[in-house]
């Protein structure tokens, strides 16, 4: 923890910011230089960075973090419907609501540790998911999802299908059709949407870095390392854990709000357990407990998803056209299992490979490479000298 100086941290942050903001150019050669995908890099990167504050530092594995993502989306869309399409209030409100929600779920779940904690969070997330489709339809609009609608003409009878946007109305904003979320007049889709998410990602990374280097962060690591010792050292781990849980829930809420800012439609499928599992994969793939790893993991998964899920049988046939007919069909048949809708199979394989050969994730891979280079460099120097 003292390995890095404040100066090194600022340099890291500056490089990170420069990279994130230049992704539209630097990632263009690998076919990732368009806004829809880069928005996902930034948003899911934030989600994973926040998740890692809980999982990476304390070792408590939550299997229900998608619930906070979903809550963030719903909260943001409600602000769009009731107050204003400006993104700022929506983001703030979503983060607060997700934080409150996380405080409630965390308070109960953190009474247990280990696998029981994981199961409790999973159970709560599934409950939220089911409630969103049943009892809570007046808030979530069930399977249709919650959307921004036209302004109500006359008295409002149905807040799901008639919007009021009190703040915008009061400010005298003219609306033609259904408005999109904006930032003081700049519409938040496409590139502006990406840059908004990117700035949030950089801010999120900065906050995570502060937490990592603070005494709070050190206590969280101590919880992961030896809770017994910590207890007999005069520390009460429970409020530290709850704080970490709430903070990571707020990151998830922010990510959910950004999804809504970019596409103002909130549905319960965002809360499904597969979404909770995905953020676990992202974090482990990138490197648990590292600052940069979770973002890399998120970007890698979204990138791979984008590529593999877009491949269809026609593309496969074209790729393997050089094979003799019978063989070509067989190869396409097999490869077809791993692409399109079946891309999760590829993800599973990738995950297995990384966990088996690089348990520390991509970050461990980079470290090994660095060491290899340094050793090579050293050998060179010797030979020359």
């Amino acid at each position, binding site marked *: 923890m003292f390995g890095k100086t404040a100066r090194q941290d600022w340099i890291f942050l500056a490089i990170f910011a420069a990279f994130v903001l230049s992704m539209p150019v630097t990632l263009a050669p690998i076919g990732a230089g368009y806004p829809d995908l880069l928005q996902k890099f930034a948003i899911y990167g934030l989600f994973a960075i926040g998740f890692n504050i809980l999982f990476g530092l304390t070792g408590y594995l939550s299997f229900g973090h998608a619930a906070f993502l979903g809550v963030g989306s719903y909260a943001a869309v409600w602000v769009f419907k009731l107050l204003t399409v400006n993104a700022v209030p929506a983001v703030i409100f979503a983060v607060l609501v997700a934080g409150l929600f996380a405080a409630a779920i965390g308070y109960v779940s953190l009474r247990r540790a280990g696998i029981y904690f994981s199961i409790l969070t999973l159970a709560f997330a599934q409950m939220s998911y089911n409630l969103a489709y049943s009892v809570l339809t007046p808030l979530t609009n069930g399977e249709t999802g919650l959307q921004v609608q036209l302004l109500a003409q006359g008295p409002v009878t149905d807040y799901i299908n008639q919007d009021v946007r009190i703040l915008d109305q009061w400010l005298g904003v003219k609306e033609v059709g259904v408005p999109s979320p904006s930032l003081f007049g700049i519409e938040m889709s496409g590139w502006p949407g990406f840059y908004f998410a990117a700035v949030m990602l950089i801010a999120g990374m900065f906050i995570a870095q502060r937490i990592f280097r603070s005494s709070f962060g050190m206590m969280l690591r101590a919880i992961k390392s030896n809770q017994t010792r910590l207890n007999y050292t*005069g520390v009460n781990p429970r409020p530290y854990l709850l704080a970490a849980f709430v903070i990571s829930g707020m990151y998830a809420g922010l990510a959910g709000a950004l999804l809504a800012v970019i596409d103002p439609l909130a549905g319960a499928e965002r809360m499904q357990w597969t979404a909770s599992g995905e953020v676990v994969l992202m974090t482990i793939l990138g490197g648990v407990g590292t600052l940069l790893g979770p973002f890399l993991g998120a970007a890698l998964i979204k990138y791979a998803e984008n590529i593999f899920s877009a491949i269809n049988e026609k593309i496969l046939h074209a790729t393997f056209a050089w094979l003799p007919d019978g063989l070509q069909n067989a190869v396409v048949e097999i490869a077809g299992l791993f692409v399109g809708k079946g891309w999760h199979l590829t993800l599973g394989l990738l995950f297995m490979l990384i966990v088996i050969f690089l348990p520390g994730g991509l970050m461990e891979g980079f470290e090994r490479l660095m060491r290899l280079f340094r050793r090579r460099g050293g050998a060179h120097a010797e030979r020359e000298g």
Partner: protein
Amino acid sequence: MAAVLRIEDVHKSFGGLRALWEVNLDVEEGRVHAIIGPNGAGKSTLLNCLIGRLTPDRGTVTFEGRPLIGRKPHEINQMGIARVFQTPEIFEELTLLENLMIPAMAKRDGAFRLNAWRRVTRRGELMEEAEHILEEVGLAEQRHRVSAALSRGDKRRLELAMCLIQHPKLLLLDEPTAGMSRADTNNTIDLLKRIGEKGITKVIIEHDMHVVFSLADTISVLARGTFIAHGKPDEIRNDPKVQEAYLGGVEA
């Protein structure tokens, strides 16, 4: 002298096993009080009853006149009681310095303080003290190593340092020299003597009679869950009851 720690009529059973039975003990302020006794006598169990790891079935324990039973472990530590465990409990994944910073922060900040923004700096009071204590226990050179890499004896010394940085009023030591070489044992005896001068009350459990007789002001002998003798080292050495129950084959 007043008793800082008073144990009255403590009983503890595990199922049918009577681990502690009618245990009474007064520990006087500033003294080194040794508890000796054969394996399985209940020595560690008694310490567990003091620090909130176990709740006695019966009896009271008071520290500076305040009851301990029913308090949470972290509350008891915040009252000024620190313990070295029989098997070292340290933060294996963290460096030695970090291992020391955590108890130091716990002492400064109490059981919980949300300090998520300020950087833990290399310079600063706590860090200086951590360095100083590492120096004192002879681990300064390894300060940036991960503590899992330490030898068993060094882990023990690290744990002792983690307790000392909190400046406890009462230090409970469960076999602090087990697994140490003769030289390391003597170093630890010297260290414990030195910190004795600062007026920390110590309860020390030890099988090594060399350590016991070098340090203890008072000795209590625990056998099969109850105390069979209390006294000054010389009295204990010559007590036939003790020799029969415990010292039998051991040269003292």
